[in-house]
């Protein structure tokens, strides 16, 4: 009988060994930066995208292979980087924007590096110009989008400014996102704060609420389920989205329309700038620096618009036809300093929630 018992224990042990072996396998196959200095690891959020051909070019030029590691949306990716500070998941982090920048810098995430090509980036985007801990890579604008057909049918001019949105003509037409859970929702709130001041924005939102603004939880739901301009499922002709949404919407259409079916209210925009930085404690800092330089190279910058639907940070890079034809350039986008955002974000979102929800 004892031998049976031993066999049972043996089976159990074998099982656990198997599991460990499985775990071991995983470890072997990871091939990350550590020992292998020919690999450079880019940590980012799950919207990061690039053409394979462009990555291949980087490998051919520098000898480094890029491995990417993503961790949820932009907010969680930054928070994960902060949690693994000093013992990072990779060498370079891409995707911290101006609403999160202060948190990242206060936590001392990055090692300074002045990327090649920075002189081609407009000063307005260089929010850490003195220290070069982060490098601006791209920017985009959160703006109200409108359904062209709706306003043409109604013979009504689409709204252009924040003020317009509170007018009776646009009553019950706008859907926005929860500022507490959605990045464009927060962007829109920050835009109104930039426009109407630290306290004035509350008065504006009271008017907006009186004018029947609808709040849903996420962008997907606002854009696809409530907005009427993206396939016509919803009944709201105005939605808080991005300035690049109209070109994105026609990107993969085989037969391109003359005009994008949606337009942008250019006076309702808030600018989001995305940065990259060399992570403190990176196992391959040399490769990381090369990758940062590459993120600001003309080749990568030209690849940015059609992969991530944002604008390249470099001003000497031409936008693709899709953007020039169906998009608009936002000249006077609202901004707030990262420090100010960091300081006010939580109280503002709380105040907004009790005011609007």
């Amino acid at each position, binding site marked *: 009988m004892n031998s049976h*018992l031993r*066999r*049972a*224990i043996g*089976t*159990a042990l074998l*099982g*656990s060994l198997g*599991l460990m072996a499985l*775990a071991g396998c*995983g*470890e072997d*196959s990871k091939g*990350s930066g550590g020992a292998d200095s020919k690999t450079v690891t880019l940590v980012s959020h*799950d*919207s990061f*995208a*690039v053409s394979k*051909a462009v*990555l291949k070019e980087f490998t051919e030029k520098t000898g480094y292979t890029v*491995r*990417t*590691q*993503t*961790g*949820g949306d932009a*907010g*969680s990716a930054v*928070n*994960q980087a*902060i*949690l*693994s500070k000093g013992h990072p*998941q990779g060498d370079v982090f891409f995707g911290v924007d101006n609403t999160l920048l202060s*948190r990242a810098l206060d936590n001392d995430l990055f090692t300074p590096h002045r990327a090649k090509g920075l002189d081609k980036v407009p000063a307005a985007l260089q929010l850490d110009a003195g220290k070069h801990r982060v490098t601006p890579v791209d920017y985009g604008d959160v703006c109200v989008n409108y359904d062209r057909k709706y306003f043409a049918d109604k013979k009504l001019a689409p709204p252009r400014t924040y003020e317009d949105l509170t007018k009776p003509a646009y009553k019950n037409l706008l859907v926005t996102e*929860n500022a*507490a*859970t959605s990045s464009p929702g927060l962007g829109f709130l920050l835009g109104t704060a930039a426009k109407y001041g630290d306290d004035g924005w509350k008065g504006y939102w009271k008017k907006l609420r009186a004018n029947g603004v609808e709040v*849903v*939880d*996420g962008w*997907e*739901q606002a*854009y*696809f*389920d409530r907005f009427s301009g*993206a*396939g016509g*499922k919803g*009944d709201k002709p105005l939605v808080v*989205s991005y300035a690049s949404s*109209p070109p*994105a*919407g*026609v*990107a*993969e259409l085989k037969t391109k329309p003359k005009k994008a079916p949606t337009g942008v209210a250019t006076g309702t925009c808030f600018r989001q700038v995305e940065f990259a930085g060399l992570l403190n404690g990176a196992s391959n800092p040399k490769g990381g620096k090369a990758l940062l330089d590459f993120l600001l190279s003309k080749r990568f910058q030209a690849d940015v618009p059609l992969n991530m639907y944002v604008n390249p940070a470099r001003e000497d890079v031409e936008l693709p036809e899709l953007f020039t034809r169906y998009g608009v350039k936002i000249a006077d986008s609202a901004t707030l300093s990262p420090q100010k955002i960091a300081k006010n974000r*939580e109280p503002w979102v709380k105040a907004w*929630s009790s005011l609007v*929800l």
Partner: protein
Amino acid sequence: MVLTRPVGTRSTETTEKKGAGSRRRDPRGAALRLALMAVPLAFFGIFFAYPVAAIVARGLRADGHWQFGRIPEVVSDPAVLDILWFTGWQAAASTTLTLAIALPGAYVFARFAFPGKGLLRAVVTVPFVLPTVVVGSAFLALLGRGGLLDELWGVRLDTSVWAILLAHVFFNYAVVVRTVGGLWAQLDPRQEEAARMLGASRLGAWRRVTLPALAPAVAAAALMVFLFTFTSFGVVQILGGPRYATLEVAIYRETAQLLDLPTAAVLTLVQFAAVGGVLALHAWTVRRRESALRLVDPARTARRPQGPAQWTLLGSVLAVAALLIVTPLAVLVERSLNGPDGYGFTYYRALQSAADSGGTFFVAPLEAVGNSLRYAVVATVIALVVGGLAAAALTRRAGRLVRGFDALLMLPLGTSAVTVGFGFLIALDEPPLDLRASWILVPLAQALVGVPFVVRTMLPVLRAVDHRLREAAAVLGASPLRVWREVDLPLVGRALAVAAGFAFAVSLGEFGATVFIARPDHPTLPVAVARFLGRAGELSYGQAMALSTILMLVCAASLVALERIRTDRSGEF
């Protein structure tokens, strides 16, 4: 023989007492149990308890001191209390509603033979794997403005709690049908018939014979539905609007967005306390209920419905399933086919061309299917090994320690995905366990959710196996392992298949934790769906719907295949 009670009940009580006595004298049984528990314990210790403890400790420790002062501070916050109250009552209401709607379904699936039964059983499980964003969208199409209900009767249920409850029924119908129906199909109908012959009314016979026998399975199903809805995230957000939030949502916000780890840690502890309370309640209710039953081949218990009453029951169950489960699924399929130029496969073709465009963002649909299947198979194997060993160890009830072990296995269902995901990140970051970049994290995280299903589906059946069979085998000289193989395994083959189906479906659909740890170059189907939904435009939406439809088909096909294996095996009875 006491025919108005399940045949085995009495005898188990006696064997139970005897068993308890003999176990104490028999160190071998205890050693075997420990050996069986070793793997599940190690698995949960390393991949659940340790990461979760690490993230909670990170939140509650500052400058080398424990900050327990935060606990009363957070717990007494009226906003937190509101969230806790809503989380609790919506979960209780969802569970009750799901049981009320799905128990007749479990009966019909167990007792009636009708064409297309296997397929329908697979179809009702499909919701399980669908991303909540996609399901939310389908429900809005039915219940929201301009939806089916709105057009027919002018009723709108979006942003009402009813939409949340109905969606929870949609997701969890299969949990009840599969867990309860699985056992029900193996109950010998002749017991109930005998009771009726001895003068019991139909209801009386059911209440005194069948219900006690089913109680453990019903309790197990209720527990799982409760835990699932207690930690509901996407459904509440999309269908309830921004006004409703569950504890899960609050934890996500504090961790992933605000990085307020102390508050998140306290909320996680609150969640644990609540889940622990529910687990204790469950343990208390089922403790005396589980009994040895005479299990029979399910193929023999199902027959064509007879008489108008049975046909009506079958008809109404099918109608409810069609309305509540098939309609939302049909909406998704319809949307995936309804392209800009009328019906066709435009969106499906666009899936491939998006992948061919050379970006890293979109993968070919077949590749995503492959990724999902590979992860799900590994996760299912892990869940079956870990859960099977745990269920075997728990078959004979024992002291508090073992019951605690049982509860530990259930905890992942009641734990926020973001807590586990972030916990992995900060805990499994040093050799030999630096798994942060490893693919194995994905199936491991998925298996964490799969194991409770395996344990809960197998345990009622394993415990229902008449202990005398095992004793007889042992007396005849069989080793414990052989007893398990020759007695338990054939009888639980069906439960094993049900468990495998669950573990597989759960892994296929897992999103919350996967999104934090999946490697971007190997996205699973739900992750790929989310990518399409993150892009503007009609085409992206259509592609998301097309990919969701593919996910549905993959799930249904896998489950039908599993059913097939199961029917082939039933010859072993």
